[in-house]
């Protein structure tokens, strides 16, 4: 372990800073989506395994704890997508001024919240049919 200063040290930053909050949220949602990849692959394998294997997998995938996971994945996907677009804009050299990045931070939160609500509505109220 090198003794030179390393980044990031979570404890030395002020958590109320929107820059830190949006950054760490992007990381956490990314990690959640990586775990979601497991679920996606499990689901694809279950489909390819035939009707019986799919029915068996759906007992797990349609259970209440799984639905909680879908809620977390919807939140994570919407946030990570919009925050990622913000990063791509930054990479072109635009929007890096303090006022601009503060505004885009709120924009990311607002747009991703809207996407989350839209998806949640579609999944839970407008009826995506599970077998």
């Amino acid at each position: 372990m090198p003794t030179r200063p390393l980044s990031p040290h979570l404890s030395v930053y002020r958590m109320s800073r929107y820059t830190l909050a949006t950054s760490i949220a992007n990381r956490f949602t990314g990690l959640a989506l990586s775990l979601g990849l497991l679920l996606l692959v499990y689901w694809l394998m279950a489909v390819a395994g035939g009707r019986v294997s799919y029915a068996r997998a759906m007992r797990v995938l349609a259970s209440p704890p799984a639905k909680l996971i879908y809620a977390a994945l919807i939140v994570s996907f919407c946030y990570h997508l919009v925050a990622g677009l913000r990063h791509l804009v930054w990479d072109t050299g635009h929007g890096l001024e303090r006022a601009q990045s503060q505004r885009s931070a709120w924009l990311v939160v607002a747009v991703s919240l809207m996407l989350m609500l839209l998806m949640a509505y579609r999944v839970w109220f407008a009826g995506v049919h599970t077998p």
Partner: protein
Amino acid sequence: MSLRSPLGRVLGQGAARAGVRHWWQQRLTSLALVPLTVWFVVSLLTLPSLGHATLIAWMSQSSTALLLILLVLVAGWHSQLGVRVVVEDYVHGSGARTLTLVVIGFAHVLLAAAAILAVLKVAFGAAPP
């Protein structure tokens, strides 16, 4: 002119000169994932049902199979790049860190291969009914 001291170079401190490649791959995969993930989510939400027969019919289309394979490959690579940075940031001790990175690398390759196999089985009509 290098500002690094010979001692620092011997101890392997400082840039490994692999950062740009990682950074660029992360941008390219994220750019590709915007349409791929949006396509996947919209498809799932607009399928008439998530029953087995519907999914088989959907995945049997070449365009679906192609996009699913791309999705799994690109998402897997993007995930690997992202998780690697988190591990490098927070797992200390070079032994533990290397071991974690190896496990995570293997896991991502395994996941991607398993998913591609599943998609191809359905696409070629080799999945049991």
